């Protein structure tokens, strides 16, 4: 078998396939070709539509404008992928000239140093780092927008931003954070760590792995373009027919979701296939680390869920461009159709976000209390139960909309039932902690934070699942506080715990612990102040998504804004810690936490194929307290 040099992966001579186009393409060529494609599409569509409208002596209508904009956005995405070399592999397959072994190795980025992060690199570790940087960027942008929203809401009558900008801020903050949360754990850790955890030498589809990242990358400038096109006035849910009637900025939202759904499908398929088909010898299903199980269930849930959101966006796009009537009652359409399609995806998506974060924390707890994971089977049943029930609860978002009132009861029951598998997750975490002596390092703090935050998020959700209570609370700040407690309190807290835990493996250095502690307390105290204040405002009756409010809500809003600044300061400190530690942190030992999973058996930098020889598994990954 192979004799990979384990210490000099990055210093080997670069394999250079002669006369191969692959060696000349990178992010820069992608951007150039993407812009050329977008410009060509813009002028071609505009001139052809103008020619058409000239015939009928009519200027461009909003619909034709939308055709030009949407066409240009998709052309940018396709052009970028062409320019970075994403289609070379399929093209070469089609013409019967497969990529040579040297070309495949070149695409894996072997020996190319930092340049590989800007290429169509197929190494899963490179893709993991690309996702990590992407997530941090999205969180930074989305967080900045949140701070602007809270600044405006600090006092009644706030005019920090105009009403139009405020509306756009709410929508763009929402969709930016939702995208960031969906990839926050499965993106960086699912790509970098997970293949090593299961003893695989790579992902099942390395080229598609790179594709999933770069497709997502093309969506980021498209989403940002919404700012320059008048923003999105609909909130992240983009309810029709408001989204159909909205201005040109809405095209950016539609294109972003369609592009993102493609990325998600490809990533979900890749992760699921890798785990099902590439586990190393001896890694039976009951020996698979719980983070891998959680991530796989999450992405497998996304595979059937996200296409319905994509469909809703395709229909919105068609209504906006070609005058179809999916959501226009005058043309036989219905806004309820949108609501159904959106929430058929929308509620499973909550668990797509949540499960990997919880699974990361379950991975952490046994390591830091030196006890086996309490009831591994209960954890799997919890994840599977949540995933199964999550597709049967979507209409609880539509109690008040008046769609099928006779189904409110059944949907209330299924929604409340989901607290049972969720309770299993708490049981597993608390059972593992029970009578343990936790090693209170940075990753472990997130576990306790999660238990507190998600308990509040979960319990307040039960009130919202209840039809009569929802009648009062629906559309209020209470709902906003609830879903932030679940998404941020579980997924982001889990991801930060995961970052602190796997940071040494991903960067070769320890995360600055003091800065991490300071950040943790700022974020957690600020978070609780922020959203407990918001619960108060919501319970008192303050509606969400409004830029001004009655004086009676002034105190609770001021409390929330103060909390938001705490979160902001904490996140800036965390960002500083991540960047500073990456370059100047203490060099990490191979296994700083003494963990038993496979990723800690490989050195940093992790070799291209992860393992010199693929390992053979003979025991479960949480055999603490059972001897060596």
């Amino acid at each position, binding site marked *: 078998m192979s004799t*990979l040099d384990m210490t000099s992966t990055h210093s080997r001579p670069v394999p250079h396939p002669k006369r191969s186009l692959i060696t000349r393409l990178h992010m820069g060529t992608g951007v150039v070709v993407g812009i050329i494609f977008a410009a060509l599409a813009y002028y071609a569509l505009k001139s052809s539509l103008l020619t058409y409208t000239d015939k009928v002596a009519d200027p461009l209508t909003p619909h034709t404008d939308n055709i030009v904009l949407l066409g240009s956005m998709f052309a940018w995405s396709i052009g970028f992928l062409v320019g970075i070399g994403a289609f070379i592999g399929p093209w070469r397959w089609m013409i019967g000239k497969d990529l040579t072994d040297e070309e495949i190795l070149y695409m894996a980025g072997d020996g190319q140093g930092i340049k590989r992060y800007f290429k169509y690199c197929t190494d899963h570790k490179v893709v993991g780092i690309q996702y990590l940087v992407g997530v941090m960027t999205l969180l930074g942008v989305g967080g900045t927008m949140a701070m602007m929203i809270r600044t405006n809401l600090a006092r009644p009558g706030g005019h920090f931003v105009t009403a139009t900008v405020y509306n756009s801020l709410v929508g763009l903050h929402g969709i930016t954070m939702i995208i960031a949360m969906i990839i926050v754990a499965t993106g960086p850790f699912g790509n970098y760590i997970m293949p090593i955890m299961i003893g695989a030498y790579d992902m099942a589809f390395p080229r598609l792995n790179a594709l999933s990242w770069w497709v997502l990358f093309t969506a980021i400038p498209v989403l940002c373009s919404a700012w320059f096109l008048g923003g999105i006035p609909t909130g992240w849910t983009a309810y029709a027919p408001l989204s159909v009637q909205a201005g040109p900025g809405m095209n950016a939202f539609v294109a972003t979701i369609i592009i993102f759904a493609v990325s998600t499908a490809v990533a979900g398929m890749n992760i699921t296939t890798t785990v099902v088909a590439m586990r190393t010898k001896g890694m039976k299903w009951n020996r698979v680390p719980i983070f891998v199980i959680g991530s796989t269930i999450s992405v497998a849930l996304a595979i059937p869920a996200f296409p319905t959101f994509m469909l809703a966006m395709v229909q919105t796009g068609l*209504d906006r461009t070609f005058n179809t009537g999916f959501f226009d009652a005058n043309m036989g359409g219905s806004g309820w159709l949108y609501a159904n399609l959106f929430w058929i995806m929308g509620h499973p998506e909550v668990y797509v976000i949540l499960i990997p974060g919880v699974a990361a924390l379950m991975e952490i707890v046994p390591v830091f209390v030196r006890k086996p994971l309490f009831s591994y089977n209960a954890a799997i049943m919890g994840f599977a139960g949540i995933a199964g029930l999550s597709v049967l609860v979507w209409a609880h978002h539509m109690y008040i909309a008046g769609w099928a009132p006779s189904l409110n009861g059944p949907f209330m029951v299924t929604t409340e039932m989901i607290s049972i598998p969720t309770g299993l997750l708490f049981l597993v975490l608390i059972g593992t902690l029970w009578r343990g002596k936790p090693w209170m390092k940075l990753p472990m703090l997130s576990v306790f934070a999660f238990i507190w935050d998600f308990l509040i998020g979960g319990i307040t959700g039960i009130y919202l699942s209840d039809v009569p209570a929802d009648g009062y609370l629906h559309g209020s700040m209470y709902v906003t506080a609830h879903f932030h407690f679940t998404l941020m309190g579980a997924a982001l807290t889990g991801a930060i715990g995961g970052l602190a835990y796997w940071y040494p493996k991903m960067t070769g250095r320890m995360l600055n612990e003091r800065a991490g502690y300071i950040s943790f307390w700022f974020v957690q105290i600020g978070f609780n102040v922020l959203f407990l204040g918001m619960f108060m405002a919501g319970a008192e009756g303050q509606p969400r998504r409004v830029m001004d409010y009655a004086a009676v809500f002034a105190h609770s809003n001021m409390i929330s804004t103060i909390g938001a600044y705490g979160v902001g300061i904490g996140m800036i400190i965390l960002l500083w810690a991540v960047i500073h530690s990456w370059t100047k942190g203490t060099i990490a030992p191979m296994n700083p936490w003494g963990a038993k999973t496979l990723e800690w058996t490989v050195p940093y930098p992790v070799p291209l194929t992860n393992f010199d020889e693929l390992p053979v598994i003979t025991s479960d990954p949480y055999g603490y307290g059972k001897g060596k």
Partner: protein
Amino acid sequence: MSHDTEFHVHHDSDAAVGRRERLGVRLLIVADGAFLFGMIFSYFYLRNLNAGGNWLPKGVKHYSATSAWLVAIPFVIAAITHRAGLRSKQARNLTSVVTLLALLVGGFIQWDQLAHMPFLLKDDGGVVSFNGAYASNWALIAGSGIFHYFLSAFIALGILIRNRTTNLPEELDLWRQRTAQSWFTWCAIAAILTGITLSII
């Protein structure tokens, strides 16, 4: 070739890689199936709702059920001929030509139907809109049919070229053709399902 290259590129057997690729494609089919489910849901939801009697307004022409099945037949032929090619190595060159031709013909028919939709409405300003929810749903389903035809034709063309090319990994290629069979079969099933859907006007 260096030892490293050998390890990175040829780690697993062709059969292992082939099985993995087939699983991946089947998972993508699940995603595509969810999209199809959404389209069929939209069709019947709006049909049953018939908001303002505008599912199919009076006097608006529609495509016949036959036209929907006319688009489905080439997919069925492509799936059958590709399967026949998998069973007989001698016939593979011929079947891959027939598969590609069937897909091109089907794609052309679908495109032609899209180009001559009978239910478009043009106002005084020359703005075109779809007359009724049936028309909107029909166009969406036809558009997804075009996407299926385009992707399938790309795959069929690749198979046709590769069947005539020497020095390719034979076992892995055979696995990939089996994987393509999963896709072609799915496209045929999807076309039949949309055929049934569009027959209920």
